[in-house]
C-alpha cells in the first residue's frame, strides 16, 4: 500500500523525542516536538469539535424548522383552536379556516394512489427479487423504475395534464359524470405512478434477502413457485414490504406540484373521486404567496406544520419497522 502523503517525515516519533531530551540538541528537538505535538493535538480537538458541530447541526436544523413553523402558525392556532382540524369551511373573506377539506383531499388521493401502486410495486419487486434477479430483463426493469423516481414532479404534472386528464375526461363523459378531467382520480393516478419506485425498491431488497434454504425447503416439498412466493417469501418479507408502503405513503402525502396541476383546486369537501379537491400541499402552493392578513398566512403555515408532523411520524414509523426487521434477521 502506498504511503499517503504528508505522513511520517514531519512528525517526530515519541520514542526519539524522549531520548533526545538528554542532550542540549535533544532538548531543542524535544521542545520542537512538543510544539508540533501540541499543534497536532490542538488541530485534532478542533477538528473533532468541528465534526461534533456538523453532527449537531442536523438536529439543530430540524429543530429550527419545527420551531419556525410553530411560531409562525401561533396566530392561527390561537384563533382557530381545535376547530381547525374539524372545520370544513375555508373562507378567507370571513377568516374562518378549517382544514378538513384538505385533509380529506390528501388522505383520499394518497390512499387511492397507494392502493393502485401496491399492485404494481409488488409485481415489480417480485419480478426483480424472485424471477429475474440478473440479466437484461432485470436491468431494464430496474433502470426503468429508477428513472421513474428521477423524473421531477412538475414534469409528471405537465405530462398528466396533457395525457392523463384528457383520458379521464373522456371516461367521465362516457360514464355520464361531469367531464372535469381534473380531480381526485387524475391526481391519484399520477401519484400512484410517482410512488411505485419507493415501495418497489425496498420490497425488492427484502424479497431478495429471503434465505435460499427456506425457499429450497419449500420447493423440495413440491411447492410451485407461486406457492413459495405466496406462503414463504411474502410472509417473510412482510415487514419490509410494509415499510416500503409506509415510505411511499409519506412521499404521496407531501407531493405538491403534480397534484396541484391536476387536482382541480376546489376548497370544498370532496364528494367523490371524480370531483375536484385540494390537498394540504396544493392549497399552500396555491394561496401562500398572496395570503393577506396575519391569520390567513398563519393558517397556511399551520397546515404546513400538520403536514410536517404527519409525514415525519409516518417516516419514523417506517424506519422503525425497517430496523426491527433487520434486527430480526
Amino acid at each position, binding site marked *: 500500500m502506498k504511503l499517503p502523503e504528508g505522513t511520517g517525515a514531519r512528525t517526530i516519533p515519541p520514542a526519539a523525542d524522549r531520548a533526545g531530551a538528554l542532550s542540549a540538541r535533544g532538548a531543542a528537538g524535544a521542545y520542537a516536538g512538543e510544539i508540533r505535538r501540541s499543534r497536532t493535538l490542538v488541530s485534532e480537538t478542533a477538528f473533532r469539535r468541528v465534526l461534533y458541530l456538523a453532527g449537531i447541526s442536523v438536529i439543530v436544523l430540524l429543530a429550527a424548522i419545527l420551531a419556525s413553523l410553530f411560531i409562525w402558525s401561533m396566530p392561527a392556532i390561537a384563533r382557530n383552536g381545535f376547530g381547525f382540524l374539524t372545520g370544513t369551511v375555508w373562507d*378567507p373573506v370571513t377568516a374562518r379556516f378549517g382544514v378538513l377539506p384538505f385533509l380529506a383531499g390528501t388522505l383520499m388521493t394518497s390512499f387511492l394512489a397507494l392502493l393502485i401502486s401496491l399492485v404494481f410495486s409488488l409485481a415489480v419487486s417480485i419480478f426483480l427479487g424472485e424471477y429475474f434477479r440478473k440479466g437484461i430483463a432485470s436491468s431494464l426493469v430496474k433502470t426503468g423504475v429508477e428513472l421513474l423516481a428521477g423524473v421531477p414532479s412538475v414534469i409528471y404534472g405537465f405530462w398528466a395534464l396533457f395525457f392523463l386528464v384528457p383520458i379521464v375526461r373522456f371516461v367521465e363523459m362516457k360514464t355520464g359524470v361531469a367531464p*372535469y378531467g381534473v380531480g381526485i382520480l387524475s391526481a391519484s393516478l399520477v401519484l400512484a405512478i410517482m410512488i411505485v419506485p419507493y415501495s418497489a425498491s425496498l420490497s425488492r431488497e427484502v424479497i431478495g434477502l429471503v434465505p435460499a434454504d427456506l425457499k429450497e425447503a419449500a420447493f423440495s416439498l413440491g411447492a410451485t413457485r407461486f406457492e413459495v412466493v405466496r406462503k414463504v417469501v411474502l410472509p417473510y418479507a412482510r415487514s419490509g414490504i410494509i415499510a416500503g408502503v409506509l415510505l411511499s405513503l409519506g412521499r404521496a402525502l407531501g407531493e405538491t406540484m403534480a397534484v396541484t396541476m391536476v387536482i382541480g*383546486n*376546489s376548497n370544498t369537501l370532496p364528494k367523490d373521486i371524480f370531483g375536484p379537491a385540494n390537498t394540504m400541499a396544493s392549497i399552500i402552493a396555491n394561496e401562500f404567496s398572496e395570503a*393577506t*392578513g396575519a391569520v390567513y398566512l398563519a393558517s397556511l403555515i399551520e397546515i404546513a406544520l400538520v403536514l410536517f408532523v404527519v409525514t415525519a411520524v409516518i417516516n419514523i414509523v417506517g424506519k422503525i419497522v425497517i430496523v426491527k426487521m433487520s434486527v430480526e434477521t
Partner: protein
Amino acid sequence: MKNSLIFLVLAILSFTGTGLAAEQQELTGAGATFPYPLYSKMFDVYSKEYGVRVNYQAIGSGGGIRQLINKTVDFGGSDAVMGEEEARAAGAPVLHIPTCAGSVVITYDLPGNPEIRLSPDLLADIFSGKVKKWDDPRIAALNREVKLPGLPVTVVHRSDGSGTTKIFSDYLSKVSKEWKEKTGAGTSLNWPVGLGAKGNPGVAGLVKQTPGSLGYVELIYALQNKMAYGAIKNRRGFFVRPSLASTSAAMNVALPDDMKVSLTDTDALDGYPIAGLTWILVYREQAYQGRTEAKAREVVRLLRWMTHEGQKYAEPMQYAPLSKKAVEKADALIGSVTYNGRAILK
C-alpha cells in the same frame, strides 16, 4: 483544492458585487394577471428604451398586495382595492395608481362556439351551482337561436387570490343579494361550486379544455385563445358585448381623487357591466427599509411612463386606456409620492 475553493468563493462574490452595483436598474413587481399581457409588453418596451429592467411576476392581485405589505417588491399590481385589514397591515399609506381598464368576460366551451347572452341573476345562479345544465330553460329563454347541448355546466373559478375575482364578485354582490350574503366579494372566495385554476391563464386554459365549462377571465385572454364569450345584460337592460368601446364607456363615471373606484354595474347605456380598473400600488413614502432615492425615482419614472407614453400599448390589446380625467388624477397621485417627505417629481 484549497486554491480552487478560494477561486470559487471569489467568483461568487464577484457575482454579488455586480448584483449590488446593478441594484438601481432593476425593479421588482408582483400581482395581477388581469393586466399581465399589457404589462409584460410595456415592461419589455420600457427596458429596451430606458435600460431599466422591470421584473413583474403575475401571481395574482392577492399576491401583489401581500408582497407589497411584506416589502419584498417595489410595487404591486392589483385589480382589487386594498381592504381595511390589508391597509392596516401595510402600516403606511399605499397609493392606487390606475393604469388601464379591462373587462371581465364570461367565457365558455360549447360546441360551435356560439354567442351566449346572460343576465345578472342567471350568472349569479350559475356560479352558485343552482343552474346545472346548459339546456336549462332559463339559459334557453335568453338564447332562442342557439342550440344548447345537454352538457353539465362546469364552473371554473380562480384558485389564487385574484383582483379579477374581486371585480367579478363585486358585480355579483351588486346584482344579487343572495350572492352578497352567501359568498360576498373578495379576492379569495369560498366558492360554492367549481374547479379552480391558477391565474387568468389557468382559467382560460381549463375552460378551453373542458367541454361545457364556463369561467371568467380578462378580455385579452379570451381573444388571444380564440374563445367564445358572452354578452351580459347591463343595468340599462341592454345586452352588451365586452369590447374596447364598452369598457371605455364603463369608465365614464365620477372619479374620486384616490382613484379607488369600482366600475361594475355601470349606469352607462353602452357600458359593459363587468369592467374594472387595474392599479399599481406603491407606498406614498418611498424611504422605507433602506431604499435609495435613486430607486424611488425609478419607480416614479416608470409610473409616469405607464400612464402616459405606455398608454398607447393598451388599445391594441383591447384594454381601455385611461380617460383624460383619469390621467389627471393619476398624475396628481404620482406627484404625491415622496422620499423623506419631499416630492420626487417636481
